[in-house]
């Protein structure tokens, strides 16, 4: 009992220990290797880090829910791009011309979020009604939605310059910029959803043992549909947060976002098989990846090595997790 408690504690704390390790390492190494005079542990630097991790981070929150559910969503990159295009392009539609620069913003945001919800719902409906595995369904829609992105505006990037929107997106409260605020608020909200509500409890139950969940009276199909709608919504929100400040979308934007989001979630200790995981640890996973990027840049390593290091860390995490599990449960090794 005590050992299993200890392993649980180790697993839960691992990602925070890793973040601490990164902070110490890059601060110390930065003193000797860095060319810039600024400290790594600078407050501004940390606030910037939070802002930069927001786009992937918000998606990763939704991915956590999906993966706790025992599913996966590979189409988030394409949903990200399509929502962004809708948000920027809808501001030029003739019917909204009378609204002015400020008035059109909520309409554009609403349409973008609606796009995300619709695409997520389509994924969820197919998973529910056909019974095809979510991996295959979203692998297909990853291609299909990307096709829709291209069909919208060809291979041309979509531009829009709305200064009111840019000002709004770059406003800050106590030094925290808009994306960072949204990211933190959402983390708290999704944490609440997953730990304090019936829906969250059901999500763990469905991921742990789908048949038992069915027998316990949980309507698994609609439940999964809601989760796909949630990740669609969050992905669109991520696009809203990111592109409100930037104002230009390429049709290839958001490529590989699904892989980054999954990496962050797995670093946070969520199992691919479903049934366990924590939103707060996903937050840690997102921060850890962004710290690694910034830190390696800070000590003057090539940006190329980031991919190498993250890949190896991902495998190492999996390896350690396995070792801990074997010790904890005395699992049969075949």
């Amino acid at each position: 009992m005590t050992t299993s408690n200890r392993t649980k504690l180790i697993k839960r704390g691992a990602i925070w220990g890793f973040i601490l390790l990164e902070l110490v390492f890059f601060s110390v190494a930065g003193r000797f290797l860095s060319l810039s005079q600024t400290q790594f542990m600078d407050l501004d630097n940390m606030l910037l880090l939070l802002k930069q991790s927001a786009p992937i981070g918000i998606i990763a929150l939704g991915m956590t829910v999906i993966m706790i559910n025992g599913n996966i969503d590979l189409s988030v990159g394409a949903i990200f791009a399509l929502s962004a295009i809708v948000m920027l392009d809808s501001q030029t539609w003739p019917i909204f011309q009378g609204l002015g620069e400020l008035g059109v913003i909520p309409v554009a945001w609403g349409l973008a979020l609606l796009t995300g919800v619709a695409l997520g719902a389509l994924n969820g409906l197919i998973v529910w009604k056909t019974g095809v595995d979510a991996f295959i369904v979203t692998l297909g829609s990853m291609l299909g939605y990307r096709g829709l992105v291209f069909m919208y505006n060809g291979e041309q990037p979509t531009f829009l310059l709305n200064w009111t929107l840019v000002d709004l997106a770059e406003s800050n409260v106590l030094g925290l910029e808009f994306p960072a605020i949204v990211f933190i608020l959402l983390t708290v909200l999704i944490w609440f959803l997953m730990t304090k509500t019936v829906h969250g409890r059901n999500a763990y139950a469905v991921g742990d043992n789908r048949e038992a969940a069915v027998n316990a009276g949980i309507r698994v199909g609609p439940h999964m549909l809601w989760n796909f709608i949630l990740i669609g919504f969050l992905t669109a929100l991520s696009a809203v947060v990111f592109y409100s400040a930037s104002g230009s979308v390429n049709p290839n934007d958001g490529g590989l976002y699904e892989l980054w989001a999954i990496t962050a979630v797995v670093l946070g200790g969520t199992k691919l098989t479903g049934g366990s995981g924590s939103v707060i640890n996903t937050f840690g996973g997102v921060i850890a990846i962004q710290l690694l990027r910034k830190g390696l840049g800070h000590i003057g390593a090539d940006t190329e090595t980031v991919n190498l290091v993250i890949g190896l860390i991902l495998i190492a995490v999996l390896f350690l997790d396995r070792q801990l599990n074997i010790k904890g449960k005395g699992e049969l090794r075949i």
Partner: protein
Amino acid sequence: MADERLNAISRLLARQGILVAFVIFMIGFALLNDRFLAVDNVLGVVRSSAILGVMALGVTFVVISGNLDLSVGSMMSFSTIVVLDLHDKIGPGLAIPVMFAMTLALGGLIGLLVGYFRLNSLIVTLGMLSAIHGLTLTYSGGKNMDIADKAGTWFSFFGQGSVLGVPVPIILLLGLACLLSVLLAKTPFGRKVYAVGGNGVAATFSGIRRPRVVLMTYLISSFCVAVAGLLQASRSMGSQNTVGQGLELEVLAAIILGGASLLGGSGTVFKTLVGVLILGFIQNGLLLVGLEFYVQYVVTWLIIILAVWLDIAAKRGRLLSPIA
């Protein structure tokens, strides 16, 4: 009686749905455009599918054994960059075997992690996707690779040459397909791959060394990736670092179209080849009809979902899922 026969026919249609759809597609495109079934067009499609096809053949083994391989795309970039770089440094005769050895080493590493350490293949290969991408960038310093003397080397033979009028990539694709098909269907090793994917525990208890079989599947996969990298390098004689990016998912799409289950235990080399050709012909057909290249993404999406749905529906005997 008649009802029963009708039922059997509909079941057959659903089972072989992908082949039926393929035939309908081919007839439709052939009617729309008379160049579609011309010999040079067909050869062109098969030739341009060769790189994806060779990779898909290898990954088929991994999928049948119940695992996934998401690293093939970045591994293909790696082998392309390596062989192009070494070509100018040590000559093509040495560069090719060295590149094969390096790619096989990467595949062996994945096989070790998934087979012997029993780590989740999706995450291991996701990590390797990222790690190998970083390795490629570090190796090349982020620069594009080019062969300096493009005319004075026989290296272009693999990607651009032809034997008796048949392009070499097609010969390599079909030759490899025959070889791997025999390996999978007619040898004890092939049986073991199916057994491990069908029920890993039962396979272990019946004396199959699961780790070794898994390791072999990843070695086969990385061997095929090396061949694909060779084809790519030799066809373009120069390459970016990201040449294989995204191919891992296209490969999976082709394998799924062929009817293999991602849970393992089913699929054949021939079916994967059909999946690859379907993707290739759809792309070509849509272009010939005058649609933009990205329309194929949407069509592929619909076909993948429909194909898998019909397959599952035929097995469970009802169209909609029983999930409440």
